[in-house]
């Protein structure tokens, strides 16, 4: 089968080696303000990758700031993604995307207004499975221009992808080769980071380690900054090592309204309001205006939605305290 999808985010591995060679490996203070990180690192030509999964560990603060600053990106991976890519869509200049999952908040439903971006034919989609996109990141992370996989074969998902069939020289079996994916920018929300960019993620890692290795620029937003001794005293805590990272931004509750494992649950009420608003352009524009454009910063957004009191409730829910229930 010949795949007819557009090949996005791919580069020659030797060209990427040259790029990675030039990245600084110094222990430098990379802490930045959120607004500066967005204005300095997000460019219109960028392919953006976003960490987390579904309603979990989304770099919301960063993405809200991207919208506030009306920074646009050229394309994006819709991979295990919900609220995150919804936010990227709002800026609406993407013409092509890699997509394994998107425009749905899993069990909660789908934001109608954003689905229209696709149904109007305004966005060209290259199809993948979650595994395929995870493996595309992994190929790049391994320093390879492709990885063989056993998914997608024989389906329209293969046909509308940009993969190529190959034969294993040992078994003679057919495999699908997926091309490495090198995002220009990745944004990953973590529990702890130090000033150099060493970062610790608790709970499921999704594809974030490979995304950090695959991406040209990596922005870490962290619930809190910790001393480097935190990592030196337990180097197994280092989920993402400093030399991959370009900027570190401290944003307490920076994942809200998504869940931060072991810290606070997602705010299901917020997401219901979001989906409700997304029923029409008008209500949606109003919702985004109130929750993003008119909030002077992320703290104001949290305040608008219940503030630290709401976070406390979500924290109790996350930790299963006080007989609180979802």
């Amino acid at each position: 089968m010949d795949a007819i999808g557009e090949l996005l985010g791919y580069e020659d591995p030797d060209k990427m080696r040259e790029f990675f060679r030039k990245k600084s490996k110094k222990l430098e203070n990379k802490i930045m303000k959120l607004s500066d990180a967005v204005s300095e690192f997000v460019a219109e030509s960028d392919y953006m990758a976003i960490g987390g999964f579904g309603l979990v560990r989304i770099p919301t603060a960063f993405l809200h700031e991207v919208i506030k600053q009306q920074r646009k990106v050229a394309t994006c991976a819709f991979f295990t993604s919900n609220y995150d890519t919804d936010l990227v869509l709002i800026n609406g200049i993407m013409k092509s995307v890699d997509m394994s999952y998107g425009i749905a908040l899993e069990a909660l439903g789908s934001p109608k207004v954003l689905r229209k971006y696709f149904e109007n034919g305004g966005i060209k989609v290259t199809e993948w499975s979650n595994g395929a996109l995870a493996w595309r990141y992994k190929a790049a992370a391994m320093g390879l221009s492709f990885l063989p996989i056993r998914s997608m074969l024989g389906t329209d998902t293969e046909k509308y992808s940009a993969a190529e069939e190959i034969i294993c020289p040992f078994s003679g079996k057919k495999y699908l080769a997926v091309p490495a994916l090198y995002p220009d920018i990745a944004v990953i929300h973590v529990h702890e980071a130090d000033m150099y960019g060493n970062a610790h993620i608790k709970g499921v890692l999704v594809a974030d380690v490979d995304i950090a290795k695959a991406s040209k620029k990596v922005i870490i937003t962290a619930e809190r900054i910790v001393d480097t001794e935190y990592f030196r005293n337990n180097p197994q805590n280092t989920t993402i090592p400093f030399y991959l990272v370009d900027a570190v931004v401290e944003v307490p509750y920076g994942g809200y309204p998504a869940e931060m494992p072991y810290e606070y649950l997602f705010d299901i009420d917020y997401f219901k309001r979001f989906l409700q608003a997304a029923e029409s352009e008008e209500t949606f524009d109003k919702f985004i205006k109130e929750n993003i454009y008119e909030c002077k910063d992320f703290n104001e957004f949290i305040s608008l939605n219940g503030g630290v009191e709401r976070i406390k409730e979500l924290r109790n829910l996350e930790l299963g305290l006080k007989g609180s229930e979802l």
Partner: protein
Amino acid sequence: MKEKYYNEMELMICAAARIFEDGVSVSVGTGVPCAAVMLSQKLYAPNILILFEAGGIAPLLPSMPISVGDKNTMYKALQTTSVSDAMEMNQRGLVDYCFLGGAQIDMYGNLNSTVIGSHDNPKVRFPGSGGANDFASSAWRTIIVSPHSSRRFTNNIDFITTPGYLNGPNSREKAGLPQGTGPYKIITNLAVMNFDNDEKRMALESVHPGVSVDDVVKNTGFELLIDEHIEQTEPPSEDELRILRNEVDPYRVVIGKKAQ
């Protein structure tokens, strides 16, 4: 009469829960699949190994997850890992069952969760494959859960997101998919179906209480293989319902929904 003591959703969950041998591994998402494995774990397969593609392995699910990576999927888990790790476990042959759904299903069990209409100019755009294609490619047995209607059960499938038996016998193997895998059972609000071993086509296995074979035929957009004698699906037992309602889904997150 049946509405007196259970609803369609409860029946579907119970029918699914009975499939698993003890000690099998099952990849699940949110909703019915998750309720089914939780029920199965409590009643039939205490050693069932539950995995979520976001990386939660063998959690002691306290209640229904809403997101495939949320806290319930890692509650008291035996490991938290990554998407590729879960997918590679599957690719290695370690996932016995996966649970999927789709907007359209054809007679070979191929699933569409991508678009209605043409790919580049869709009438409706769905979320896409997610992990469905990966699990259906490499898990040994795929279980499909779906509302039953002739619009969904159609051979005019707009897009094969996820492989069933593709074009029939041997076509999975020819495409390069791992040997011995494929769709196993389909559970709807009307019936349970399976696949004929030779033809790899969908066959009726049992109809739910109160449903006739004809009801199923009318709601299926292609020809089902139908044996002369079709059993009735075992209705939920008292034990199943008690545990489902009291322990698995006390807030009626899943069983409170309509099956269609």
